[in-house]
């Protein structure tokens, strides 16, 4: 079964509004990462939050992590048309030792209406 599940699958908002995307996962993790992907393009790393962190900020991005609920959220504030993309959360498997492959969620397709 899918480790990461994004919610919602699609989100359309007006430019300037805030966008919130959620991710749930099933197993223990070392860290959770968020990526952005424009259609058919590469994955751009946005932010990594470790399992012992609860909140992290980077510019207009705010990520939270609740390991007790196995969930994370990504908030993009003051959205811009250029934020239109698919957003994925990705988790490792807490094997220890690093170099773990990531398990991606299905992604949220975000559309910012000008």
């Amino acid at each position, binding site marked *: 079964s899918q480790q990461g599940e994004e919610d919602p699958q699609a989100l359309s908002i007006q430019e300037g509004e805030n966008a919130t995307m959620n991710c749930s996962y099933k197993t223990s993790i*070392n860290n959770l990462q968020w*990526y952005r992907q424009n259609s058919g393009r*590469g*994955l*751009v790393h946005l932010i990594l939050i470790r399992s012992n962190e609860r909140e992290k900020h980077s510019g207009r991005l705010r990520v939270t992590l609740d390991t007790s609920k196995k969930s994370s959220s990504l908030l993009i504030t003051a959205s811009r048309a250029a934020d239109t993309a698919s957003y*994925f959360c990705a988790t490792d498997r807490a*094997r220890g030792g690093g*170099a773990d492959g*990531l398990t991606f969620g299905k992604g949220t397709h975000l559309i910012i209406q000008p």
Partner: protein
Amino acid sequence: AAGVIQSPRHLIKEKRETATLKCYPIPRHDTVYWYQQGPGQDPQFLISFYEKMQSDKGSIPDRFSAQQFSDYHSELNMSSLELGDSALYFCASSHTSGGANEQFFGPGTRLTVL
């Protein structure tokens, strides 16, 4: 800043042919990862290498093999290609010995099997 380099960017092959994809990690990164992303799908982890040794294994078909060389670049070899192998293939790299599994992705190779 230098990014992950993948070549070729586009590749067209016939069924049952072979293909080799190449990946050059970010300088000083010691780990490479391979992912496959089908149309409209989330990326699926295939395999990873840390310091030239296989580290983690995902859903890589037996027809595929990979290795990491002494200069840390990696190659993904795909044999007996099938129509279903048509996908975007991403390589990512990380500095695992630095303690975090923050993976940075290349632009991908789009493989089309006819």
